């Protein structure tokens, strides 16, 4: 097992380093702001006193590296400072919204992952049939459509024309779980549509390249039934690509979630980020970016570690 442990350790260290570099990037990007941050935030009309007060509040009198270390230390404890606009603690604003976003993403993932992988395998087995071609066109169309297009179409059909589901996904902590599911159904469905299409195509490609291996032909020449070829000979080797597909698409969900939250006015972290960007509320922007990036890096990390763990050549070294 020595090799595997070493590989995983190396991958973990690399992931941590990447996260560190990204945090530096996010923090110092704001430093690139032309001119004085406080001035930029308050605009030209601000008085000298208010600018000075803001500078004081942001700790701008200290050198940037020191402020970065403070910020990073805070971030590790979940403290991202205070909002420049409202003066609320960033962590207090983000906390519940982050949970909402997580809820929406997991809602979509729980439906999309099994659905897409089953369909992807099915389409790979039926490759070159008419169903494969139809699936190809349909998934390509779904991938090509912007999330807000799919979102509005769903609103039009399910909220406006039939009023089966609410167009605005206003949720709160007091609601029952069933109610939450019902109210956030349309945003989740939008995400499911896009992610399923991506995942199906990637699963199909992975399975097809696997089915072309000589050992699959060998299994068929041993008289193994098609079903058993898949389950016993293809699947054990398919975990790495499938894990990869899932992780990549979950990572994709994070980006998709921003647009979908705006379309459905869903109280999540994505909408918060968009608001903060237009108001130039940098502490919130930085915090949101760090959270999104960290999730993204973590998922990619999980994919790589999963691929290492399921590789028989690495699991059973010489």
């Amino acid at each position, binding site marked *: 097992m020595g090799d595997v442990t070493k590989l995983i350790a190396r991958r973990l260290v690399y992931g941590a380093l990447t996260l560190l570099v990204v945090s530096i990037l996010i923090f110092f990007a704001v430093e690139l702001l032309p001119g004085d941050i406080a001035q930029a935030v308050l605009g030209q009309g601000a008085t000298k006193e208010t600018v000075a007060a803001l500078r004081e509040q942001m700790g701008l009198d200290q050198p940037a590296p020191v402020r970065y270390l403070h910020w990073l230390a805070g971030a590790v404890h979940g403290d991202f400072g205070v909002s420049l606009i409202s003066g609320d603690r960033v962590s207090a604003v983000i906390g519940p919204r982050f949970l909402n976003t997580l809820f929406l993403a997991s809602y979509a993932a729980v439906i999309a992952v099994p659905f897409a992988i089953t369909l992807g395998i099915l389409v790979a087995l039926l490759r070159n049939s008419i169903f494969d071609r139809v699936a190809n066109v349909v998934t390509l169309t779904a991938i090509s459509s912007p999330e807000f297009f799919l979102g509005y179409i769903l609103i039009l059909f399910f909220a406006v024309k039939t009023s089966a589901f609410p167009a605005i996904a206003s949720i709160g902590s007091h609601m029952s779980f069933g109610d939450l599911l019902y109210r956030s159904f349309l945003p989740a469905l939008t995400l499911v549509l896009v992610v399923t299409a991506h995942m199906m195509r990637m699963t199909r490609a992975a399975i097809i390249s696997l089915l072309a291996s*000589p050992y699959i032909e060998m299994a068929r020449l041993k008289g193994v039934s098609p079903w058993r070829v898949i389950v016993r000979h293809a699947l054990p*080797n398919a975990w790495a690509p499938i894990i990869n597909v899932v992780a990549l698409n979950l990572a994709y969900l994070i980006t998709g979630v921003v647009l979908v939250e705006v379309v459905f006015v869903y109280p999540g972290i994505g909408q918060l980020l968009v608001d903060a960007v237009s108001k130039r509320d940098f502490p919130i922007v930085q915090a949101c970016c760090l959270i999104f990036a960290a999730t993204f890096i973590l998922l990619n990390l999980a994919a790589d570690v999963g691929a290492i763990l399921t590789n028989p050549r690495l699991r059973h070294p010489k």
Partner: protein
Amino acid sequence: MAKNKDVLLRIRDLRIEAQTDDEWQEIVHGVNLTLHRGEVLGLIGESGAGKSTIGLAAMGFARDGCRISGGSVEFDGMELTTSSPSALRALRGSRIAYVAQSAAASFNPAHKIIDQHVEAPVMYRIRKRAEAQEDAMQLYERLRLPNPQEIGFRYPHQVSGGQLQRAMTAMAMACRPDLIIFDEPTTALDVTTQIEVLAAIRDIVDQFDTAAIYITHDLAVVAQMADRIKVLLKGEEIEEASTEKMLEDPQEDYTRSLWAVRSFERQQKPRPDDGTKPVVSVQDIDAAYGDTKVLEDVSFDIYPGMTVAVVGESGSGKSTTARCITGLLPPAKGRILFDGTEMPPAFRQRSKDQLRQVQMIYQMADTALNPRLRIGEIIGRPARFYGGLRGVKLKNRVDELLGLIELEPSKFYSRFPPELSGGQKQRIGIARALAAEPRFIICDEVTSALDQLVAEGILKLLDRLQKELGLAYMFITHDLATVRAIADEVVVMQRGRVVEQGPKDEMFQPPHHPYTDLLLSSVPEMDPNWLTALLEERGVDNVGEAAKV
């Protein structure tokens, strides 16, 4: 050998089509074949002859993108071309088994060897799992695999290529089939390993009186294995006869031309004794990839107008030596002299003229020529780069070079490499090397990817060019027939060291270094009794150990 005369497999007028660009093209044009119980039939032909396709069709199987379009395949009274998929499945693995070319790729990396071995017998309820495992170990022992009790519990990537190939033969035997298809089972192996596998296969086929179709492109190999031989060319059968008759008295021109290939042999030239300095002198070279040492104290000289063959199996360091000479891999120790002066170790430090003097011809002509450049530019570039030729002069030079390699200039000048045959591509590779007007050319397995007839043409061409232009060659090869044909001196390498070197005629006469001996004696000969004789000489049980010298 008394063979039971029941017909086991009868193929009549078999036609197979392959799909290219939405069109079906016939690639096997009406082949007939009859195989009796316990009989071994050799299918022989060059690449593209359709051997593997026919072998698979004997199992009622066509690869994706292929289909059996006509004729009949009758196995033990059952028509396979019209059988249902489930009926065919019931046959495969149990009554007809398959041994693939690359065992390393054909074993599933996710399961232990023995689990894959017992899959078919357990599935067909021929044996219980424990019995099947016991049987597997006995087969491993019979095939002389090391640690037969334990080797099955390893994963495929933990076992060497030659052992895997034997394990795959054992797996094919698991259900004691009536027929086994061997699809080039030793092509990917070194000669010394090949012997073990050949002996094992022949042994087990004899013991269980299994019928077999043995597919290969190597005549000498098939002569050891088959009772009868069938010669194929481009999906058509040329002729068929018993092995002895086929070797002694082939009827067709094509077959005779195959046999004739090994006749080319050049007189050995002695070293010049007038104090001429060697063109290339390799002196005490060590080299390593990272921490792995791959060359140790390699030294040899190459004199003008002479051919030095560097012989060894994969991993012996012969290609690495070439990389050191060209400067792609600067040696860790030692010097390389060109015409008596030391060359900088890395090619980037060498002068344009030093680079010009050492040229290389590659094994795979496909990857050695840029598929998107016209022949005229491929050959013209060195002439332009080194000689500064332009315009009409350049065109004339390219025409001259094309003439040298016996290709019609007007026909080839503006074509692209993918439009050429393998032999033509290799000739272009030679012309590109010549365009630099070098004094020394490294030929890296230049004939091993070619069909034998074409390879012979290339060897003759290289020989003629050497005489006309006074070139020195370093010939990297694992094929002793090539060495016999073209070398003046031989360097034998094993595991990064030179184990023996000297003039060719001496090298083919005993006494030898034990490894040279093993290498020489392992090369299959046309004589159908060669393998039997060799095994008797070595003592059958020592086959495995002999390779480990």
